[in-house]
């Protein structure tokens, strides 16, 4: 009978946990495709969607606050984020944030293929219930991409991508490459 619990930390443990979470996400993507009327992503986007979903729910939380308190005496601004990132990566993953939506939180998937110089705008209509009401809302955008590799370059990629938020008649996320 197992009567002891030992706690470990490290990348070996994290790899196993992340792989398991990835498998659950993979099943979730499959269930999206099973819906007859859904414009679900083709399996060719599974890899990049899993990359995005694995980290989308991650947060630095309390550990980030602590490190921020330490680093702010030395550095500031974007440098602090870089420093904290080196210790915590994307942070603690919360699977529930990406395995489904709740009545108070919607997670949307967008995907596509870009060639050099192209951009895609994804429209995010605000629910009418939120229209005209002031209150705290949070928008988290996670971008993942796959690029052809450039084996002769240290950074090993041929392209990069970025997002920007457009304020029009609605919010739109624009992905550029």
């Amino acid at each position: 009978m197992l009567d002891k619990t030992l706690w470990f930390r490290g990348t070996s443990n994290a790899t196993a946990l992340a792989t398991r979470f990835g498998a659950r996400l993979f099943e979730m993507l499959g269930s999206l495709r099973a819906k007859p009327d859904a414009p679900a992503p083709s399996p060719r986007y599974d890899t990049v969607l899993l990359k995005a979903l694995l980290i989308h729910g991650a947060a630095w939380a309390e550990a980030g606050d602590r490190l921020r308190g330490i680093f702010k005496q030395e550095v500031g601004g974007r440098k602090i984020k870089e420093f904290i990132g080196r210790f915590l990566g994307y942070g603690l993953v919360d699977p529930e944030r990406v395995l489904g939506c709740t009545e108070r939180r919607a997670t949307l998937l967008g995907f596509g293929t870009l060639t050099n110089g192209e951009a895609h705008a994804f429209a995010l209509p605000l629910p009418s219930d939120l229209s005209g009401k002031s209150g705290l809302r949070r928008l988290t955008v996670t971008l993942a991409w796959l690029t052809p590799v450039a084996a002769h370059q240290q950074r090993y990629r041929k392209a990069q991508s970025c997002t920007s938020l457009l304020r029009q008649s609605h919010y739109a996320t624009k992905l550029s490459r």
Partner: protein
Amino acid sequence: MNNADRLPLLLFQEPVPTPKARGFGGGSKFNPRSSEEVAGYLGPKLTRLEQVLEAERIRVQATGTGIEPEMALVIELATDVGQDPVVSRDQ
């Protein structure tokens, strides 16, 4: 949270092609150095490299015995040198 409490993820509509936004980040503008500057910091290194190579002037041997792998250049010949002696030191 139970599976039953979860609502399925939503999907964006098809994205609309749009002009590319100006990116941020990336490196600063590349400012090439003059040949004098490059010669200034690379020259001594090249001189040293040349000295090292001169000190270990090329030796040809048929077997790999006793040579350091870092110093070896293996040349595989398609034919017997004795039969086709066109190799010239000047080339």
